[in-house]
């Protein structure tokens, strides 16, 4: 990953944090150049594109599209790609926050306040279905 692509990645994440949404390629420069860079970053697992549209799908730990993991942090609402990423949004922003989701089994609303990096409800469990070796085989499923 060269300095130009690292710079594009920085600008992409900075746009997300400033505006609360992922940018379109045309909002960061020449769309063809930006898309080429995003494709290289996607190949390096630094971002995730929607393969059908070339739009941003994940700026991990943030999701560029709505998900079951909503996170209130830094005076905004965000979406996480999964439970790990939802907690990761507070980590990346270096702030406390609140994760809202529902139990995939019963649909019960689950709300977790994160203060000083610790969840207020310590009884909840995190289940990871896919082993680490295969996380990037299908990162959206993972």
């Amino acid at each position, binding site marked *: 990953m060269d300095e130009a692509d690292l710079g594009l990645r*920085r600008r992409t*994440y900075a746009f997300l*944090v400033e505006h609360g949404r992922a940018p379109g390629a045309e909002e960061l420069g020449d769309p063809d150049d930006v898309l080429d860079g995003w494709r290289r970053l996607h190949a390096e697992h630094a971002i995730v594109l929607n393969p059908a549209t070339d739009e941003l799908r994940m700026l991990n*730990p943030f999701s560029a599209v709505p998900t079951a993991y909503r996170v209130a942090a830094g005076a905004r609402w965000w979406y996480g790609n999964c439970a*790990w990423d939802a*907690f990761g949004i507070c980590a990346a922003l270096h702030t406390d926050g609140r994760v809202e989701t529902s*139990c995939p089994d019963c649909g019960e609303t689950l709300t977790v306040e994160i203060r000083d990096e610790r*969840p207020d409800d310590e009884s909840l469990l*995190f289940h990871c279905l896919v082993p680490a070796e295969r996380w*990037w085989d299908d990162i959206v499923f993972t």
Partner: protein
Amino acid sequence: MNLFRSEEHISRWLGGRKPGTTIPVTKLSELAHAWWDDRLSPDWVPHTRDQNMAILDRLGLTGEFWTLP
């Protein structure tokens, strides 16, 4: 990668599928903070596999399931 109320809910959700692994939400929070803490840093560069494995090892997330490719 989901949150659940209890082991009973996980088992029911899995149905007949092979389970992955389950950790307490407190461990998840430790993992998330160690893994994503630097993601918005201007100096961020991709973690190496060894760096990520070191995070997992430090948190006791070891064994075949947690071994990165």
